[in-house]
C-alpha cells in the first residue's frame, strides 16, 4: 500500500489505484505548470512533438535493453535542445524544423521497436497504462515532478519576464536563451513523466487543456498557473475514478475530463457575459426609455 499509514476510500482502496493516483496527481499538477509557460510562448505543440520523439527513445530502449523511461528522457532532452537551437539559429523555418525532428522521432521509434526481439510493444507508451505501473515507475514520476516544481520555483519569475518581452529581458541581463532551453528541457521531462500516465499521444492535451480552462477564469498569471494545476489534478482524480468505475482507458478519461472542464468554464464565462448584458448601465436605460 505504498507504505501509506492511512486507507483511502473507493475507488482508491487498491494499491494499483493508489499508485495511479499518486502518479496522476503529480502529472496532473506538473504538466499544466510547464504548459502555462509554453502556451504563452505560442509553443503549445512542443509537448506533442517531444512526445513523438520520446517514442524513439522507448523504441531504442526495447532494442538496447535499457530502461524505457531514462532512454526516452535522454532522447527527448537532446531533441528539445536541438529544436531550441534550430529555433534561435533560424536554420530552418520553425514548423518545418519541428516536423523534421518530430516525425523522424516517431518513425525511428516504430522502426526500432519492430527490430526488437522482446514482445513488449509501444502501446503502453502511446496511450498510457497507469494501472499497470510498478512502484518503481511511480516513484520515478514523483522524482521527475519534483525536478519540474523546483526548477519552476526558482526560474518561474524569470521565465515570465522572458514570456512578457524577450528583448527587454535580454537587455536587462536575464539569460533568455538559457531559460528558453531550460523550458524546452522541462517540457521533455514532463512528457516523459506523463508518458506512462496518459501516453505520448495525449500528453500535450494535459499540458494545454487545463491552461485553456484556467485562462478563461483567472485574472493574473499566478492564478492562471495555480488554477491550471488544480484543473489538472482534479482531472486526474476524476478521470481515474471514472476509469475504475466504468473500466475505461485511464489516460484518455483523464484528458476527456480536462476537456470537459474547458466546456464548463466556457459556459460559466458566457453566462457571466450574458448576465452583464441583462443589466445595462443607467445611461443606456435612459436612452432606451427616451422619446422616439
Amino acid at each position, binding site marked *: 500500500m505504498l507504505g501509506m499509514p492511512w486507507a483511502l476510500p473507493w475507488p482508491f482502496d487498491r494499491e494499483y489505484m493508489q499508485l495511479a493516483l499518486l502518479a496522476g496527481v503529480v502529472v496532473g499538477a506538473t504538466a499544466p505548470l510547464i504548459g502555462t509557460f509554453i502556451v*504563452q510562448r*505560442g509553443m503549445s505543440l512542443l509537448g506533442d512533438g517531444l512526445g513523438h520523439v520520446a517514442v524513439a527513445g522507448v523504441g531504442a530502449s526495447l532494442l538496447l535493453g535499457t530502461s524505457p523511461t531514462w532512454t526516452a528522457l535522454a532522447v527527448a532532452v537532446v531533441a528539445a535542445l536541438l529544436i531550441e537551437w534550430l529555433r534561435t539559429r533560424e536554420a530552418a523555418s520553425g514548423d518545418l524544423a519541428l516536423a523534421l525532428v518530430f516525425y523522424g522521432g516517431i518513425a525511428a521509434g516504430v522502426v526500432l521497436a519492430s527490430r526488437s526481439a522482446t514482445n513488449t510493444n509501444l502501446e503502453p507508451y502511446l496511450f498510457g497504462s497507469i494501472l499497470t505501473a510498478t512502484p518503481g515507475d511511480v516513484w520515478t514520476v514523483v522524482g521527475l515532478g519534483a525536478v519540474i516544481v523546483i526548477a519552476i520555483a*526558482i*526560474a518561474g*519569475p*524569470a521565465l*515570465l*519576464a522572458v*514570456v*512578457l*518581452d524577450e*528583448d*527587454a529581458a*535580454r*537587455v*536587462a*541581463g*536575464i*539569460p533568455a536563451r538559457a531559460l528558453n532551453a531550460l523550458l524546452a528541457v522541462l517540457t521533455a521531462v514532463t512528457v516523459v513523466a506523463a508518458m506512462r500516465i496518459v501516453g505520448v499521444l495525449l500528453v500535450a492535451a494535459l499540458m494545454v487543456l487545463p491552461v485553456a480552462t484556467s*485562462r478563461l477564469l*483567472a*485574472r*493574473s*498569471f*499566478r*492564478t*492562471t498557473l495555480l488554477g491550471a494545476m488544480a484543473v489538472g489534478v482534479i482531472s486526474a482524480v476524476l478521470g481515474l475514478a471514472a476509469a475504475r468505475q466504468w473500466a475505461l482507458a485511464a489516460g484518455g478519461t483523464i484528458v476527456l475530463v480536462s476537456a470537459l472542464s474547458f466546456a464548463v468554464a466556457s459556459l460559466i464565462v458566457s453566462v457571466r457575459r450574458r448576465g452583464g448584458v441583462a443589466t445595462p448601465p443607467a445611461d443606456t436605460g435612459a436612452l432606451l426609455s427616451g422619446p422616439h
Partner: protein
Amino acid sequence: MLNLEPEPGAALVADSRPAAPVLAAEHVSFRYGNDEVLHDVSLAVGAGEFAALAGPNGSGKSTLLRILLGLLPPSSGTVQAFGSEPRSLRDRWRVGYVPQRLRIAPDLPATVHEVVTSGRLPKQGWWRRARRSDREAVDHALESVALTDLRSRRMAELSGGQQQRVLIAKALAAEPELLVLDEPVAGVDVDAQGLFRDSLVHLVREHGAAVLLVSHELGAVADDLDHVIVLKRSVVFDGTPAELAATGVSLGVHRDDLPLWLEELRPEEWP
C-alpha cells in the same frame, strides 16, 4: 511652415559631448547587405541628462537603438554603456529599456503588478526571491506613473496610454541609471502624454537618472530636454534645445512641423 536653411551639416553638430558619458557611440556604422542604414554615428549621453534622439521614420533610429542596447552588433564602431560594451556590462539593471509597445499576447493573463514586478528581476537577481526593498521599489515605480490603483488589472484591459505607463514602471522598478525609451508616445492621447512626461521628469530630477528618448515626436517633453540629437542615417544635429532653437526650430511649438524640419536638416556631403 518652417523655412530652415541649414549651414553645412558639420556646423550643426556642436560639440556638446559630456565628459563622462553613461552611454557613448563612436563611429558606429551598420549595413543590411549593401544598404548602409547608419553611417559614422557618434553620440554621447551624460549622467543625469534628459536627452532625445529624434529623426524621421527610416532614419535608422530603431537600428541605432538596438545597437546601443547591445541587441545588434554594429558593422563597425563601438558602443559603451557605463564604460563597458553593452552585452558585457556586469550590472545590466543600470540600463532600463522601454519598448515601443506591449508585445505580450492580448490573451496573456498578467496583471499590472506582475508585469512591473518582472522588471525588478535584473536588480534583484533573477533567481532570488523578492525582498522587502524589491517590493518597495515596485510599489514606488507604480506610484510614480500613477498606476497604484490599477495594479490588479489585467494588462489587456488597459488603454494604450496606461499600457505604456506600465512598461515605464516596469523599467523603473530596477531603478536604472539610464532609461532608454523607444517611440514611447506613439498612439498615446494628450492626457497620457502629460503623465508620461511627469514620470520621466521625476526620474531625471528626483533620481538623477539619465534618459534617452528615441522618437520622431518630441512635443510632450520639448521643454524638459537637456540635449537633442537628430539622426538621419548620420547625426545631423547634436546640441541643446536652445541651440536647435537658434537654427529657427522650436521643438515645443511646432510639434506638427517636426517631420518637416527634419526633412530640411540634411548633411551637406551625403556619403
